């Protein structure tokens, strides 16, 4: 097991380098360079001064030297200072917002698992039933609905018309005055809609996936054997079939990480939740390049970590992987 983990970690290194190279090229895609903001409209600028400024930021060096320096800073988690008015180190701004984004993503993963697996199993076991057909329609809707539109509709229904749930923010204005249970309830109320919205697409995908998995497993010989030796249907489905159908779910969960993190831009912006996605959106609107680069790299690294965790869990759950791999 230790050897397997080591191997996986070593395999991450070239991918990490690739991530930084692509991020660096994205940065280099900008027309002009970061100094044009300072120089283009400044009447006091002459060629000499422009050269000096470019040299000051190291922009006169060849790209691989620039990349090397940038990479060294990345490795020390130094993403530079934000261009925004607060001028704080980018890494601080990102780290204070990651917990909220991760919390929402974790909750929506739990929701996805908790709802999609039973639905998938049910529709596989009762294939072509009314329930199965109903979920098929739901799945097609789930794939086609723009999540931000769903968010708007839910906000109109639960926030405006019924006035049951708050439609923006992470906590109420009077949060500090509330007692602890009230505080938890307050945050929970604020999170219901965002979590549901961010889980919706995944719900559809996962229940579809679970259904086809289950259908595949039920056809196997060992299920026929289990039935032949007289086990009741519940044991066959939940003990023999479900366990095997659940295995690939781990991988799918890992693969869904980038989608969830990327989606956080949209729902955190809509619901005004101060997470990493909202920070990213604000940075894009303000052209706060250091923060954009920082979040781009960290988002990719989070995905990589998610995939690694999925692989490790898989190897824990399925001994064949760590023996063969």
């Amino acid at each position: 097991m230790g050897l397997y983990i080591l191997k996986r970690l070593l395999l991450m290194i070239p991918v990490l380098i690739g991530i930084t190279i692509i991020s660096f090229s994205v940065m280099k895609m900008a027309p002009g360079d970061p100094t044009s903001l300072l120089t283009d409209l400044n009447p006091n600028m002459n060629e000499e001064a422009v050269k000096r400024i470019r040299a000051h930021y190291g922009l006169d060096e060849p790209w691989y030297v620039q990349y090397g320096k940038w990479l060294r800073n990345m490795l020390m988690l130094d993403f530079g200072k934000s261009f925004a008015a607060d001028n704080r180190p980018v890494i601080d701004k990102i780290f204070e917002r990651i917990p909220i984004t991760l919390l929402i993503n974790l909750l929506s993963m739990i929701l996805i698992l908790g709802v999609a697996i039973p639905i998938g199993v049910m529709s596989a076991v009762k294939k072509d039933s009314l329930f199965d057909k109903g979920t098929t329609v739901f799945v097609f809707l789930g794939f086609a609905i723009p999540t931000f539109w769903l968010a708007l509709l839910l906000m109109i229904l639960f926030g405006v018309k019924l006035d049951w749930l708050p439609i923006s923010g992470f906590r109420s204005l009077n949060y500090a005055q509330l007692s602890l249970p009230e505080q938890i309830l307050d945050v929970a109320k604020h999170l219901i809609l965002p979590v549901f919205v961010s889980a919706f697409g995944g719900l559809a995908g996962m229940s579809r996936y679970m259904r086809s998995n289950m259908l595949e497993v039920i056809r196997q010989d060992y299920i026929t054997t289990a039935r032949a030796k007289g086990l009741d249907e519940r044991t066959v489905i939940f003990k023999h079939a479900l366990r095997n159908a659940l295995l690939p779910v781990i991988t799918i969960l890992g693969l869904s990480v980038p989608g969830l993190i990327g989606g956080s831009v949209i729902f955190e912006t809509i619901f005004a939740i101060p997470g990493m996605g909202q920070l990213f959106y604000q940075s894009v609107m303000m052209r706060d390049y250091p923060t954009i680069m920082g979040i781009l790299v960290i988002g990719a690294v989070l995905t990589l970590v998610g995939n690694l965790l999925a692989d490790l869990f898989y190897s824990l759950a399925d001994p064949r992987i760590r023996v063969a791999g």
Partner: protein
Amino acid sequence: MPAEITRNRYIGAVIMRITGDFTRRLAKNKMSMAGLFVVAALFLTAIFAGYLAPYPPDEINTTNILVEPTRQHLLGTDILGRDVLSRIIYGSGVSLSVGFVAVSISTLIGLVLGAVSGYYSGIVDRIIMRFVDIMLCFPSFFLILAVIAFVGPSIWNIMVVIGITSWMGVTRLVRAEFLSIREREYVQAAIAQGASDFRIIFLHILPNAMAPVLVAATLGVASAVLIESGLSFLGIGVQPPDPSWGNMLTEGKDNIEIAWWLSLFPGLAILITVMGYNLLGEGIRDSLDPRLRQ
């Protein structure tokens, strides 16, 4: 050369049989016909927007703002008194063109990289596949937004950026097809005859690998439409006053407490469009999949 003619006739007959078979199965599939209907309707709406729309899309009428849906304005009017239905009709062109251009770009990249990767294997294959892995690590929405932040928002930039950030699936698909088709007898025969790589890739393998690519492209249009609407909703896509379904929803959000129709209808248009492409894609897949043949 009679032999040549006979052979061409024979190939023609085979193609007729296969495509005829495919078309017949596609026509029998109710879901895909519904999808085809939606897609065709979208095309017609976009082409004939000028004739269909009851009002010009940017006709401002300050005496008539935020009107609920009525007989004059079937889907109501917005904050500047513009007719929502007309703007939705004009917005269909954006969705259509973004979907097609973006998917053409990503499919082209995917075809080339996948073909090279699957045909040559070895070190080239390993490099390309690693590149795919790395690209898949980026939350695609982050990557798209970052690039847009650097190159600036415009409909053209969006098409290109969506295209160059969504080719990975097609690449893997094409590679897998190439790996398996390369081992078939007719390809081996072509190699033995000394045919050039170019000829083998484009004449012998690629045509046989196109079916899953077609499916992926159809489904890709759906996701490109979704991404574009999301970007426009965030104000990073199609810029007002040009109507797009996404930026109409931004107005919906800004007036969420007073005008529900601004939020409901543009989103419905997106939903129906995306569903149309998805149904069509699934239908094509079912019709092409030999395992589903009776």
